[in-house]
């Protein structure tokens, strides 16, 4: 099974691929498109030259924004033959140590000097560099490298990278779900190939995508979505093969009650019907059309604006043509709606058995009604996990579940995480750490017991005094 040279093809960057740009700890998800400008760290980049290169290649950004594979990293560090001080008693912060001015540096940059050479110049022109301790010198160079090195690495997306990217760039879009918390969720919910998992998330599709990655295209994922249509921009960024999407289903939570009551009508009807239900669906279909664009990862705004102004050029179209277009659009809409109804019926069939294998909730909604509503679709002895940025709503869920029964192994947890600097004689925790990664409520469903025996341990709202007794119970 050893990989030989010829299966390198699977590791090559292709046009249309979803990739992640990386510099240091900064990530950005983009799609490789011909002659498309991408802004990364305040720089314009064209990714065309990356096509055909291998993933995980580091590229140099040339003037004009084109990429060129970075030559082997030169190991020669600029401080090879420099002496070092023993401590900082002679270092004075007078701002006069660096002889190069801003303008000098800009001039060097314009001359096309590479990062490595600029740093060399900075060191050479630093009056007291030799007085700095060895450690301080390394730190100085590291800092300057970050500032002047003009490279970008192109990575294949993964749940790890995207979770770290979202957490670092746009935590608000993913309800501040920290990556280690997401890791806990995927494990606590026992996500694996071949199962049937329900997902309710408003994390831009990150949670959904992570679950799909762990299922590897086997089994089914049902996205229970609020509002007009499912939000899945983040799923795109994973760049899944097409067959993964066949395992993805969606169901609007506004139909859950109807489904449970057995009154859900999934027959394809005339979209013009004055039915309230239909109207809602109509609206949903429309929204769905717009949503993927509006919610696109990264920087969709400039993008859509550009295309809009392009359209404006051909503004005076004849009325008849407009009408034709309208008709065609209506036709498309109708087909879309029919397709949607078909999908709704298929998903309803998947849910009807109430035999799902797992439930994952991570949203900005109050988790209590969501959890209680969706737990009904799980088989007994299956795990569920609920994320919330706040602990109080989960406390409420916890209490409710205790009251209702039907669950065991309830745990309300959060994780504490910190990173370390590991260097010879300089190992210590990093000075900054994340203050919190949100809270999780996890548990396992059990068969509900209709004939409640006398003296049941399934206590109602427990009095504080009975706490001890409570503790020993599932």
């Amino acid at each position: 099974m050893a990989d030989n040279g010829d299966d390198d093809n699977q590791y090559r960057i292709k046009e249309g691929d979803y990739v992640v740009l990386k510099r240091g700890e900064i990530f950005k998800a983009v799609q490789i498109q011909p002659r498309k400008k991408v802004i990364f760290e305040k720089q314009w980049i064209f990714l065309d030259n990356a096509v055909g290169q291998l993933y995980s290649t580091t590229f140099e950004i040339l003037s004009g924004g084109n990429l060129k594979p970075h030559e082997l990293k030169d190991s020669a560090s600029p401080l090879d033959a420099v002496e070092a001080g023993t401590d900082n008693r002679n270092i004075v912060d007078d701002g006069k140590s660096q002889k190069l001015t801003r303008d000098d540096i800009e001039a060097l940059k314009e001359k096309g000097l590479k990062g490595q050479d600029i740093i060399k110049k900075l060191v050479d022109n630093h009056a007291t560099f030799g007085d700095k301790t060895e450690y301080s010198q390394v730190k100085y160079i590291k800092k300057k490298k970050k500032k002047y090195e003009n490279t970008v690495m192109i990575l294949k997306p993964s749940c790890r990278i995207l979770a770290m990217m979202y957490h670092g760039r746009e935590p608000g879009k993913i309800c501040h779900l920290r990556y280690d918390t997401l890791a806990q969720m995927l494990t606590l919910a026992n996500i694996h190939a071949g199962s049937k998992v329900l997902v309710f998330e408003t994390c831009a599709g990150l949670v959904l995508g992570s679950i799909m990655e762990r299922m590897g295209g086997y089994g089914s994922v049902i996205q229970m979505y609020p509002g007009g249509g499912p939000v899945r921009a983040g799923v795109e960024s994973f760049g899944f093969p097409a067959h993964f999407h066949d395992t993805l289903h969606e169901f609007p939570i506004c139909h859950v009650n109807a489904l449970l009551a057995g009154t859900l009508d999934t027959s394809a009807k005339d979209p013009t019907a004055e039915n309230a239900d239909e109207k809602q669906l109509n609206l949903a279909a429309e929204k769905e059309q717009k949503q993927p664009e509006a919610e696109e990862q990264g920087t969709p705004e400039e993008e859509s604006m550009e295309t809009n102004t392009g359209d404006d050029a051909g503004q005076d179209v004849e009325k008849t043509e407009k009408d034709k277009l309208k008709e065609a659009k209506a036709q498309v809409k109708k087909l879309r709606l029919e397709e949607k109804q078909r999908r709704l019926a298929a998903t309803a069939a998947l849910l009807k058995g109430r035999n799902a294998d797992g439930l994952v909730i991570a949203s900005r909604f109050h988790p209590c009604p969501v959890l209680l509503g969706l737990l009904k679709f799980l088989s007994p002895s299956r795990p569920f996990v609920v994320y919330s940025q706040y602990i109080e709503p989960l406390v409420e869920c916890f209490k409710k579940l205790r009251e209702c029964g039907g669950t065991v192994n309830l745990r309300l947890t959060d994780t504490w995480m910190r990173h370390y600097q590991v260097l010879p004689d300089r190992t210590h925790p990093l000075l900054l750490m994340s203050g919190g990664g949100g809270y999780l409520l996890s548990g396992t469903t059990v068969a509900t017991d209709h004939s409640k025996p006398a003296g049941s341990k399934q206590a109602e709202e427990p009095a504080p005094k009975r706490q001890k007794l409570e503790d020993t119970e599932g």
Partner: protein
Amino acid sequence: MSFVEYSDFIQDGDVAILYLSHNNVMPVKVQQGAQTQTRYGVIRHSTDLIGQRYGSKVTCSKGWFHVLHPTPELWTVALPHRTQILYTTDIAFITMMLELKPGSIVCESGTGSGSLSHAILRTIAPTGHLHTVEFHQQRAEKVAEEFKEHRVDHLVTVRNQDVCKDGFGVTGVADAVFLDIPSPWDAVGHAKVAMKKHGGRLCSFSPCIEQVQKTCEALQDQGFEDISTTEVLLREHDVRTVSLPLPDFGPDPETTEEATPAAAPNHASITLKTTTLPREMPGHTGYLTFATKPRT
């Protein structure tokens, strides 16, 4: 039943998990005619388990409990300890940071009690493979037996050898390598050999910072990139209802006479739902060092 596939009903030969209470979970090998003693009384497999639905309640003479379908997470809290084991919090983080998914080829050493192994197998099934190396012969045999009982043996190869001397027994196949051994720095070279030419991810788990230090140096020497060390801890919040008494400042002359009697009951208190953190909790498991092997 299998650790990588759910079933609905308990069958002869399954491994089921008896969920007795929050901190009392026991695995049981289901056998026609067998009996198991629990703290709630004896259960008879033929009548109490076989043919029942996973998640059902089993009533005994002294109480009742639920019988659950096994998962790697339940196994982690139920398994017989032959060594120190990895717990779910670390396992979850390792799984994500090693980028494990269906189809991944993984190398692991040592196998220990198999806590992490089961979680890896669950994630890489149905098309991945785990090569696990354990230098202790009895442990290697025992865990191989368990993999069979848990119906995941088709996904795993157990080797009884010393990873620091003999490596993983495979070359150029692994997407990810996990090390939980006393001297991981001695295995870093072997890890590199086992990994795919294109590259992959490595994790080393060590309780001591000195081990981390040496491992990081070895990783750097072997050309690994993106080396980072992290610690993850679980905090479990205990949900409870508490009642906080309100102090009595005596009658307030400013308030109207009518309000006074109602506002000053003798034992006024406020009841609220809140959480507390345990008085003591595991404060250290180990440092997790991750690295990326670049293309070689």
